[in-house]
């Protein structure tokens, strides 16, 4: 049959004379719209519960209007006068009037807290001055200095200038153990207040270690699952999945029962004479407890992707390698292992990302040394109420995970990821 191209017969048309191309496009558009309507509820759900909160979190990390919203006159003075200007009478008047309003509106605590983030010990200055703010009379400079001589401190004015801008990178700086000096230059925190960077490093190291132990423990189990006859592998699969059907809290607390100093493991070892009664090992409420409990909890996330990759690898590959002269170790290393890499990558990435953000297990069994960055984020969320710092820490964690993800994509290729 000869080829008939569109140019030979002119424009293709439908039976009612419309051009076929646009008619097809219309028909396809309609079905696309219908398909979109089907996913709309899920999309809305994800936007409301996931995208918007993350956006708010990222915003909160750089935005805090605790000062600017409640101290409008002082904020205006900072805008009008360049940095370094010695505060004049107008500035003190603005400050005194703002303090009066803030005291009346009961927002001075918020203001004090905001300044206190940058310069500790200043919250009480604001609250105590505000208590007598109603009695402040012009001239305000003298009145304020009489109330507290600290109001003349140029560092205080420098800090107030910094926080008068609601948008600030200072929380990120704090999350990276840095701060600004009076001139706004970025400098490291004093040594004794540096905690976050080392905690980030520890979190990533622990997550890496947990991922590695999960891999070591999970690989043989996944292989067994993939090669056992169906009836045995199903039973084993149930055992692997069993932890999923048990509450996380129950699993974690059961590790407390097992690992504590008077717990099952220590008692058994003492009974067997492996350790003496005085030499009971501290296995919980420290890093070791965090590693053991989290390895156990995250193990299925390693096993399942490995299993799904191993299952379709036919045993003939290893046999072929053996028949070609490879020892069983060489056959495993050169032929079997490379074919499981997509599963190893997927499992490791999954376990690592989950471990990096894990909160409840380290909180329960980690003690002081086993705390991860997420525990500190929770602390700032719930106890210190410095939400902006918590957001900045969380945003850094999110960024670090995304960077890792990107590196993984470059090295292994995300197409090679196989989760199931």
């Amino acid at each position: 049959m000869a080829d008939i191209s569109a140019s030979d017969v002119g424009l293709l048309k439908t039976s009612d004379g419309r051009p076929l191309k646009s008619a097809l496009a219309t028909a396809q558009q309609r079905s696309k719209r219908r398909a979109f309507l089907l996913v709309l509820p899920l999309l809305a759900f994800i936007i409301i519960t996931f995208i918007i909160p993350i956006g708010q979190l990222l915003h909160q990390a750089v935005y805090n209007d605790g000062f600017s919203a409640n101290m409008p006159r002082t904020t205006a003075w900072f805008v009008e006068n360049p940095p370094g200007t010695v505060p004049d009478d107008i500035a003190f008047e603005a400050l005194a009037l703002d303090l009066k309003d803030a005291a009346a509106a009961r927002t001075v605590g918020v203001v004090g807290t905001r300044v206190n983030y940058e310069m500790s010990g200043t919250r009480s200055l604001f609250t105590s001055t505000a208590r007598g703010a109603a009695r402040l009379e012009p001239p305000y400079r003298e009145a304020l200095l009489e109330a507290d001589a600290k109001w003349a401190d140029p560092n205080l004015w420098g800090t107030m200038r910094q926080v008068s801008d609601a948008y600030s990178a200072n929380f990120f700086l704090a999350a990276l153990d840095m701060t600004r000096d009076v001139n706004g230059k970025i400098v490291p925190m004093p040594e004794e207040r540096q905690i976050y960077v080392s905690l980030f490093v520890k979190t990533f190291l622990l997550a890496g270690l947990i991922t590695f132990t999960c891999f070591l423990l999970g690989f043989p189990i996944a292989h067994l699952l993939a090669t056992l006859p169906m009836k045995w592998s199903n039973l084993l699969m149930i055992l692997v999945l069993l932890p999923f059907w048990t509450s996380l809290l129950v699993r974690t607390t059961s590790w407390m029962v097992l690992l504590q100093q008077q717990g099952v493991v220590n008692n058994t070892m003492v009974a067997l004479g492996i350790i003496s009664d005085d030499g009971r090992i501290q296995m919980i409420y420290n890093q070791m407890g965090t590693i053991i409990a989290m390895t156990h909890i995250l193990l299925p996330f390693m096993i399942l992707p490995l299993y799904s990759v191993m299952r379709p690898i036919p045993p003939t590959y290893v046999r072929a390698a053996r028949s070609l002269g490879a020892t069983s170790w060489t056959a495993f290393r050169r032929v079997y292992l490379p074919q499981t890499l997509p599963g190893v990558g997927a499992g490791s990435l999954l376990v690592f990302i989950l471990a990096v953000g894990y909160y409840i297990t380290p909180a329960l069994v980690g003690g002081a040394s086993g705390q991860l960055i997420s525990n500190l984020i929770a602390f700032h969320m719930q106890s210190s109420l410095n939400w902006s710092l918590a957001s900045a820490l969380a945003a850094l964690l999110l960024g670090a995970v995304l960077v890792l993800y990107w590196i993984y994509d470059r090295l292994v290729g995300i197409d090679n990821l196989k989760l199931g």
Partner: protein
Amino acid sequence: MSESHRDAFVAFDRVQKSYDGVSLVVKDLNLDIAKGEFLTMLGPSGSGKTTCLMMLAGFETATNGEIRLDGTNINAVPPHKRGIGMVFQNYALFPHMTVGENLAFPLEVRGMGKSDRDAKVQRALDMVQMGAFANRRPAQLSGGQQQRIALARALVFDPKLVLMDEPLGALDKQLREHMQFEIKHLHESLGITVVYVTHDQGEALTMSDRIAVFNDGRIQQLAPPADLYERPDNSFVAGFIGENNKLPGTLEELTGDKALVRLATGEVIDATAVNVTQKGQATLVSIRPERVEFKPEMMPPGAHMIGADVLEVIYMGDILRARLRVAGSDDFVMKMRNTQGQTRLAPGQQIKVGWHPQDARALDPV
């Protein structure tokens, strides 16, 4: 140890295999394979042929008996030390390696240097006309090309013995026939010994020097293709290889190997006795469809002919295939060459059919 055992390149000596310790999958296997021979293990699935191959390759251990390669017992030798090339059913090309890396693998694990390796890989690829494909991945090749690479990989380290486990099973018919000839030619030009497992009798007949027909864990017959086809030893072989008419009856007369068989419907036919010995014994006479004659002038003098009704004639191009009713059975088949002057039969016609006595084999009844 008998004389033949010592000469054999591969020898199975009273080999038994049981997986569950209850039933035997391979029962008392004795088989000698000569150097340079192309031997095919043919049989239905579950007949034990693949188990035999796996025992030879070292992936299964014999429960009993001894397997020898070039005179030495290899029962305890692990697969990677046997130096046997193997082509697997689905090729088993390593998907994460290129074709070249696949072929270099057996040389690499033997510690061969890179330049020697490259030269050998190229030679092996050229041998299967795949010289330009060294950098491809197996997934980028067609089934036939993968098959060639699998073949080249099994041959690249110069094994003396190559095992093939249904290597052509996944190819379409035309390619399969083409590859059959290629494998045969490689075997001849390289002088290697090949043990080939298949359930395709056509493949076995085309390629082999000798065929071992397996059933129920035993070798039913071990013979060159022509013998196997024309002179089957028993009913299983007669039925398994090629198309076959079976007429049940009892042995009426027996002189030497010449037999007269009375069919259930009373007619008497000529046959050659194979594994029947007693007059009056029940037997199954087996006749190939293409050996059935319906023209009296083609028959030897004195041979019996029996009446037949033509039920159906099918035109198949090179041959005409007639289904006849003979001795009460409706599935008697006769094949006629489609020559210029061939008589065309029509359904409903009544004819007489007969055969040379040596073409009808009186076998054990099943």
